């Protein structure tokens, strides 16, 4: 044998990679800054939002009993029959009764009138939580005499003090307490309908409970500790339900409250994921650049005897450490955000939100940060093990041929599996998590193909006749070592996330805004009887006020839908018509034409019935039609205060519910309901507060039965609160967009590596600064433009799907917004690209090469 088979084994030091990682990072801190920023912003959004959401759900859970104030609430438009009441009373002897209705209240001390929600209460309600009053004892004392509790804001507004009187109908009550909060009520609710509590046993004296009055009857029950809520109780509850009463328990209220925040919660989740994924792209891009820069060092160290695994471990230790730093910074920022969010949303949540630091969120945020840092960095880092030591002596040395790197594929699958697990943990649906992950993978593949297609297309189609600078700039997109595919993927993915978020943000903000701000009506007169109609109209005109809308309203109930009654629908489990369709009271109107807030979507609107024998075709709102799965021609039988009326669905209307005016689910043509018992609504606009007070007093004096809603005040507060919601949405969205910009910078910085030497060479052989700027501009303009365009198209698709399956609305792309996003991303890409290349142009070629070397 003329040679040895084996060499002596070297005892490689385990500590050495650690030592090298630390030494190398001393001079690389600046280069890792983008990476730290990207991960910290992503983790901040994740920690902030998940902590907030957990906190909110926890508080809803903790305070669920106080949301309803009792174990069970039974609500109906008439009192519970005595037989049922007694049966329930046997099981839950703690019971309170409440009657509430809207009525004008009058403050004699200041001569003010205002529509309020009058609540007449008997019993110990609330059993959980408190009716909060000043003084505290007033909440229990008011039932013991002719006393009232009045909403604090109402008292301030009408300059009323404790000891003054409030007149409700015919009865005067002494105000003994300022009402601050009642169970389950939000700030916004209190403003829209300020509450006046009066004792139940003095309700009759108000003389307001006339037949046909719109009144709600409530019974609150507290369970006996030993009550069995499954047996007889549940039978009773289902009986109550069948009788058309609405039964609410703590669980249901909790779900309802949770559902009310579904949009916000879904949106916040979207924001958190967007920020995290953008952060991940930022990590992947910055580590890609970092890895490229370290190739030379690795080649040299390989010459000196470093093993391939050691190369990865040095930079993996750095990534892990800086990922940890970034994640900790992110978690701290997230905690800050979590502390600030409850302040932002306090007005529109029904629970007291005390920010509680969720260590689990913080720790899992830090953990997720480190794991995503390592996983997304590994995509590039694993390539270091393939760095040939030959590169130390030949800079152009590369692996002989392209080989499918199994480790990179493994890392790719690990990332997808991790993302899927993360999404699953957040939303709890494996199917949704799989769809999202698959969608993400598909998007990456499509974007990669677009990039390849662009490079190929330019190579084939680029004419020689175009000016040199443009030709050079565009050629950079397909020349060897081009980053076209990679940049189009990262830019496109980033744009897709940001654009989706912006589309969703606009849609959600739009959803909570009030249409027609300037000339909208601000005063609504309700309950005008038919004989009073013309007089009230004249009175309004006498005060120089416009009659903006005058609408007759007829109340009715749905008896049959396509021949199926409520009972039949309940028995047949295959019928999906919801209960409320039969239970609710329909307030409908009739007219011969559609108004500005209505758009005909399907069918034909027939505005007049001339012959009493003719079929009646009603128009229903498209949302209502969708919920009831109605088709044109479906038969609907209504009970109009005793008389049955057969109608057919003639058309679907899209109704803009955000407009301040009377809108209707069901619209009748003229010639049908004119003779039915009805009341009227008159809508006007009063610009002057004093005129408003005088007009309201004149109406109430002459027509005490008429209720007036002063919308100005409500709308102002409503807009203020909706503005706050919009701010929360924007605040969160911009957080993600911040991460997006960092991602954009990291992505573009990666192209620097490739272009630096080429541009320096062009400079060396005499290219002017102007020419170089143009070349760089052309390259980034096309990259940014196409990346943005691809991203926007993907965002349109994503938003449409999200709208349909998550947020339940139809997305109609706003082209001006799309153009704006496209232009912004393109301009940002070009600007960052030019900034990134400025030293190539401003410094001498030798200086640049020395710095880069």
């Amino acid at each position, binding site marked *: 044998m*003329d*040679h*040895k*088979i084996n*060499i*002596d*084994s*070297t*005892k*490689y*030091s385990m500590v*050495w990679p650690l*030592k090298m990682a630390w*030494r*190398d*990072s*001393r*001079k*690389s801190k600046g280069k890792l800054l983008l990476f730290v920023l990207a991960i910290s912003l992503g983790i901040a959004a994740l920690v902030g939002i998940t902590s907030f959401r957990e906190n909110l759900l926890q508080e809803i859970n903790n305070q669920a009993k106080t949301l309803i104030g009792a174990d069970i609430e039974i609500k109906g438009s008439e009192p519970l029959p005595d037989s049922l009441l007694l049966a329930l009373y046997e099981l839950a002897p703690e019971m309170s009764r409440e009657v509430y209705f809207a009525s004008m209240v009058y403050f004699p001390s200041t001569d003010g009138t205002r529509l309020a929600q009058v609540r007449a209460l008997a019993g110990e309600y609330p059993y959980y939580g408190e009716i909060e009053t000043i003084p505290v004892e007033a909440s229990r004392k008011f039932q013991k005499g002719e006393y009232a509790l009045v909403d604090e804001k109402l008292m301030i507004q009408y300059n009323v003090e404790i000891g003054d009187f409030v007149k409700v109908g015919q009865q005067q009550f002494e105000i003994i307490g300022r009402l601050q909060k009642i169970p389950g009520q939000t700030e916004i609710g209190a403003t829209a309908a300020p509450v006046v509590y009066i004792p139940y046993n003095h309700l009759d004296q108000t003389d307001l409970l006339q037949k046909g009055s719109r009144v709600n009857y409530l019974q609150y029950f507290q369970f006996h500790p030993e009550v069995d809520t499954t047996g007889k109780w549940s039978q009773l509850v289902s009986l109550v339900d069948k009788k058309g009463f609405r039964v609410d328990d703590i669980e249901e209220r909790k779900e309802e409250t949770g559902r009310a925040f579904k949009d916000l919660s879904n949106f916040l989740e979207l924001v958190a994921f967007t920020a995290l994924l953008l952060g991940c792209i930022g990590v992947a891009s910055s580590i890609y650049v970092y890895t490229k820069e370290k190739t*030379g*060092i690795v*080649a*040299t*160290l*390989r*010459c*000196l*005897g*470093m*093993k*391939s*695994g*050691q190369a990865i471990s040095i930079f993996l230790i750095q990534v892990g450490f800086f990922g940890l730093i970034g994640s900790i910074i992110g978690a701290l920022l997230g905690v800050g955000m979590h502390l600030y969010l409850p302040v932002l949303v306090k007005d529109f949540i029904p629970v007291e939100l005390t920010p509680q630091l969720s260590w689990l969120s913080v720790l899992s945020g830090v953990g997720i940060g480190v794991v995503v840092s390592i996983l997304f960095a590994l995509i590039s880092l694993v390539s270091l093990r393939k760095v*040939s*030591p*030959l590169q*130390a*002596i*030949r800079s152009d*040395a590369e692996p*002989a*041929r392209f080989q499918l790197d199994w480790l990179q594929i493994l890392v790719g699958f690990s990332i997808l599996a991790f993302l899927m697990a993360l999404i699953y943990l957040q939303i709890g649906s494996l199917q949704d998590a799989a769809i999202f992950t698959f969608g993400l993978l598909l998007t990456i593949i499509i974007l990669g193909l677009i990039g390849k297609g662009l490079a190929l297309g330019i190579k084939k189609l680029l004419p020689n006749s175009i000016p040199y600078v443009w030709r050079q700039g565009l050629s950079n997109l397909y020349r060897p070592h081009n980053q076209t595919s990679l940049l189009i993927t990262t830019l496109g993915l980033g744009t897709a996330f940001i654009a989706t978020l912006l589309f969703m943000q606009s849609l959600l903000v739009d959803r909570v805004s009030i249409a027609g701000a300037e000339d909208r009506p601000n005063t609504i007169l309700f309950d005008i009887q038919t004989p009073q109609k013309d007089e009230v109209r004249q009175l309004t005109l006498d005060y120089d006020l416009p009659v903006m809308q005058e609408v007759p309203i007829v109340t009715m109930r749905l008896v049959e839908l396509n021949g199926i009654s409520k009972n039949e629908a309940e028995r047949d489990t295959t019928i999906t018509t919801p209960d409320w369709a039969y239970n609710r009271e329909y307030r409908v109107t009739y007219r011969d034409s559609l108004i500005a807030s209505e758009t005909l979507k399907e069918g034909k609107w027939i505005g007049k019935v001339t012959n009493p024998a003719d079929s009646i075709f009603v128009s229903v709102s498209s949302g209502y039609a969708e919920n009831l799965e109605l088709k044109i021609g479906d038969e609907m039988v209504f009970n109009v205060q005793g008389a049955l009326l057969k109608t057919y669905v003639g058309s679907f209307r899209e109704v803009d519910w955000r407009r301040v005016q009377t809108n209707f689910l069901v619209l009748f043509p003229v010639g049908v309901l004119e003779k039915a018992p009805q009341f009227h609504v008159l809508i006007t606009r009063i610009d002057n507060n004093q005129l408003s007070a005088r007009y309201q007093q004149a109406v109430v004096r002459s027509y005490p039965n008429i209720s007036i809603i002063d919308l100005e005040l409500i709308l102002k507060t409503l807009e203020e609160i909706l503005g706050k919601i919009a701010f929360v949405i924007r605040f969160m969205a911009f957080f993600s967009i911040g991460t997006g910009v960092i991602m954009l910078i990291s992505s573009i910085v990666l192209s620097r590596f490739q272009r630096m030497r080429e541009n320096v060479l062009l400079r060396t052989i005499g290219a002017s600064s102007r020419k170089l700027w143009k070349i760089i501009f052309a390259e980034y303009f096309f990259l940014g433009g196409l990346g943005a365009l691809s991203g926007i198209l993907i965002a349109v698709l994503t938003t449409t799907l999200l709208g349909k399956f998550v947020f339940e609305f139809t997305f109609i792309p706003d082209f001006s917004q799309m153009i704006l996003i496209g232009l912004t991303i393109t301009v940002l890409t070009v600007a960052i690209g030019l900034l990134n290349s400025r030293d190539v142009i401003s410094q001498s070629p030798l200086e640049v090469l020395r710095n880069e*070397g």
Partner: protein
Amino acid sequence: MSTILQVESLTKTFQSGHRQIRVLDNINFTIEEGQSMSIVGPSGSGKTTLLGLCAGLDRATEGRILINQVLLNKLSEDELAQLRNQQVGFIFQNFQLIPTLTALENVMVPLELRGEKNIVSASKDLLNRVGLSDRLDHYPGQLSGGEQQRVAIARAFSNRPKILFADEPTGNLDEETSHSIESLLFELNREQGTTLVIVTHDQDLAQKTDTIIRLKGGKLI
């Protein structure tokens, strides 16, 4: 004296499109322990490729290479790395110091890689030997070209290699600095008994070695 490097029927080809380019064609030579040898030839004659193959940085298409009787062809990439760490030293034309490490740390790397302890003083002695005792904590960017090459020489000798490969060691330096680097290289070579293989264009430098092999078009002439 025993043979430290043995090259037998060495051929290296590259694929360029559909064409196969033969960069080295049937090269044979040996070099004894402690000897010095230079490989000279015009640009593109295959000098650097030959150096890369001899040092185990690249794989031969045909033929055999043995360093200190170890056949390189059969070794894995990591075994080659171990062999380089134990028996081979390098000096590069563009110095190839690690820019993020100080001069002292650069010299310590090969010893640290093999897990040796108490290496600071030995590394300092080496830097002292190459005249850089006052530059221990300087980063490569803070050193001149000549100083960087001195650090590279100190690093190359730090693991007491059996054979040292130098690729145009004075190619990036001015004449005066080149002379001092050459002297240093040969002095250390003699002191440590290391075998020296130099790739160079510089005929004067080549003349200072014990053997010269000439390459043209991938063949020994």
